[in-house]
């Protein structure tokens, strides 16, 4: 009969595999050992980062008395935990635990190991924030520490429930489908990316969040009767020492709900591994052959639309466009383009997988396909900015945007040529150094025409023509390089 400690240790092996798979989908790299270690390291860094952030938030919140501070804290715990680990959790749903059935373990022990493996995704942040928050609350006000603590546990349970639900939904939604199904799939990703993005934006907008908390406070207080029933408000009221009967009732109800959702999540994640699907109807297979470039475009859009991590990355420049839409167009383009270098690099990283190495693919085909995608993402991003500009009654500068599309094309082609020539086929996780290295030429190509235009503007001349000329020369150069390749 293995002890719990033993089971925990066993779950560690599966966790290692999980981390590896969530980061590297297919292993055809040269030195696997190094990659395994770096995968573990970057996951650990992610966790420590989140743990630290949540702990700082926990301490900050514990020493404030505003109801809204607690509301934000609980809501953030739920969302950040869920979305931060969505990728690992999605990988978890395809984890293989078959080997466990060959070991002398009972079903109960196996489900314990499965759950422990799952818990390991969150272990450090959850444990750390729980301890820090509890200690901080006891120091501040022992009386309200109990409901505050329960509030935190409830939030964590909801986070786990949410992440299990979402990753399950993703897993089944990646199945093909046309019409409505694909629209729903896209909606899923938009929701996912936005939520994930809120995490990214969160780090920089924390101050803003708390400031608006004060603005909402009066609204909350004047509607306290209804709100104090609701999660996370009931816990927030109790945590800041406003004890109303409604809040106590709310606490009881939401605690039960959290318990149920945690229980359901636990049984769902252990159940995944015993489910089979036989009821599939047979249809005449349909294939559509296209040119290699189009085939790549199709393949990449499919991969992107089915991987939350990739989808997020591609949406990043568009999100960035949303944020920057109040500023000037050139600044926005520079920032968007910086992200586009990252996107280019990651799209190329998709080919690290063996399959494209054994196919007769010319570098030109590969680079053209990826570049078309990058330019499309650029156009969508500036399109978003334009839309917001127009809605605000301002006229966007289509000329600058269009010339810069040529530079984006050149950037993508040249970055990809360098990557191909130097045999860098990596993703963001395994090749951060290489990315920084490629960022430099990519960024120069983007900034050069803008810098030239800026100089002309200062000198008081027409700056649009120099801008266009510079971009056009870059574009021609890229085309020539692409064709001599």
């Amino acid at each position: 009969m293995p002890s719990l400690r033993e089971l925990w240790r066993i779950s560690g092996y599966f966790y290692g595999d999980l981390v590896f798979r969530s980061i590297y989908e297919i292993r055809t790299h040269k030195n696997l050992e190094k990659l395994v270690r770096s995968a573990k390291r970057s996951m650990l860094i992610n966790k420590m980062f989140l743990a630290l952030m949540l702990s700082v938030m926990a301490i900050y919140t514990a020493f404030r008395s505003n109801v809204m501070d607690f509301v934000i804290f609980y809501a953030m715990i739920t969302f950040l935990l869920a979305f931060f680990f969505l990728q690992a959790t999605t990988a978890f749903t395809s984890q293989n635990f078959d080997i466990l059935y060959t070991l002398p373990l009972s079903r109960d022990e196996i489900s314990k190991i499965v759950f422990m493996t799952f818990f390991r995704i969150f272990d450090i942040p959850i444990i750390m924030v729980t301890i820090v928050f509890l200690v901080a609350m006891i120091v501040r006000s022992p009386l309200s520490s109990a409901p505050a603590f329960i509030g935190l546990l409830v939030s964590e349970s909801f986070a786990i429930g949410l992440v299990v639900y979402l990753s399950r939904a993703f897993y089944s939604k990646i199945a093909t489908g046309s019409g409505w199904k694909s629209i729903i799939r896209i909606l899923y990703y938009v929701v996912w990316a936005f939520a994930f993005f809120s995490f990214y934006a969160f780090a920089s907008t924390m101050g803003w969040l708390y400031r608006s908390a004060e603005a909402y406070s009066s609204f909350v207080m004047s509607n306290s009767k209804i709100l104090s029933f609701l999660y996370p408000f009931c816990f927030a009221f109790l945590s800041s020492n406003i004890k109303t009967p409604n809040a106590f009732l709310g606490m009881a109800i939401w605690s039960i709900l959290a318990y149920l959702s945690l229980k359901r999540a636990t049984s769902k994640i252990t159940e995944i591994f015993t489910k089979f699907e036989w009821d599939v109807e047979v249809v005449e297979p349909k294939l559509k052959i296209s040119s290699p470039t189009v085939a790549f475009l199709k393949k990449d859009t499919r991969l992107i639309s089915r991987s939350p991590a990739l989808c997020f990355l591609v949406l990043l420049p568009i999100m960035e466009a949303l944020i920057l839409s109040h500023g000037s167009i050139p600044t926005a383009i520079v920032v968007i383009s910086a992200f586009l270098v990252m996107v280019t690099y990651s799209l190329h990283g998709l080919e690290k997988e063996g399959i494209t190495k054994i196919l007769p693919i010319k570098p030109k085909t590969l680079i053209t396909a990826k570049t078309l995608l990058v330019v499309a993402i650029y156009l969508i991003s500036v399109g978003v900015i334009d839309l917001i500009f127009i809605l605000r009654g301002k006229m966007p500068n289509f000329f600058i945007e269009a010339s810069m599309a040529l530079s984006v094309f050149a950037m993508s082609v040249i970055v990809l040529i360098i990557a191909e020539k130097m045999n860098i086929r990596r993703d963001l996780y395994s090749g951060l150094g290489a990315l920084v290295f490629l960022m430099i030429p990519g960024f120069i190509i983007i900034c050069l025409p803008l810098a030239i235009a800026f100089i002309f503007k200062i000198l008081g001349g027409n700056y649009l023509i120099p801008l266009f000329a510079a971009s056009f020369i870059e574009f021609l150069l890229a085309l020539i390089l692409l064709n001599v390749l």
Partner: protein
Amino acid sequence: MSVLTVENLVVRYGDTVAVDHISFRVDEGEIFGLLGPNGAGKSSTIKAIVGLVDFEGKIEVLGKPVGIETKNLIGYVPEEFMLLESLTPLEFFEFVASVRRIGNVEKVKTLIRAFGIERFVNKPIATLSMGTKQKVSVISALIHDPPLLILDEPLNGLDARSSRILKELMQRHVEKGGAVLFSTHIMEIAESLCDRIAVINKGRIIAEGTIEELKELASVEGSLEDIFLKLTGQYEGIKEIVDAIS
């Protein structure tokens, strides 16, 4: 005529020399087996031929050095799946066929039916069973009718019917003038399928020839398994180990 020529092939992973100056050739109409214990260097040899790892030495397919031109001459079934897991088999075949510039999709449909995966072609590959994934892998290697088939432990995970189909396909393939290179641990398969066999151990070929030639070489009567164990120096001590265990 030689379909595949390998001369002085060396494959390294850092300091490890996985393949150490291997030479062999596979001719038209021939099934050539690579046989060796775990870690012998079979997969590394194959990966060098298909372009997955860097190598030193010479590899030619139909007289052309391996590179982008030879990729359409080879159909490769890897030891570990190299599939795009979030695509469905159908989307995956579509991608491979498009990149290989295959005009006729009937072949793909025939293969799908032959291997009986019609029910799975619209499910994400990630959700398929191991054997079904292997079938997807085999089909994707066959769709462009390559003269050289390279199969790394191809029967792994296949059910009886499909491994029979694959074996027949291999034989049919060489009858039509193609060539097959495949690796296996399973002696019976090597014995029943291969025209010639190379026994690899620790990155070197220690014996090569037909089964009869190998028997003579090892001067043992008996199965290929006996020859194999004798040649790779694994014969001694088996009885002691079994005795010690039981």
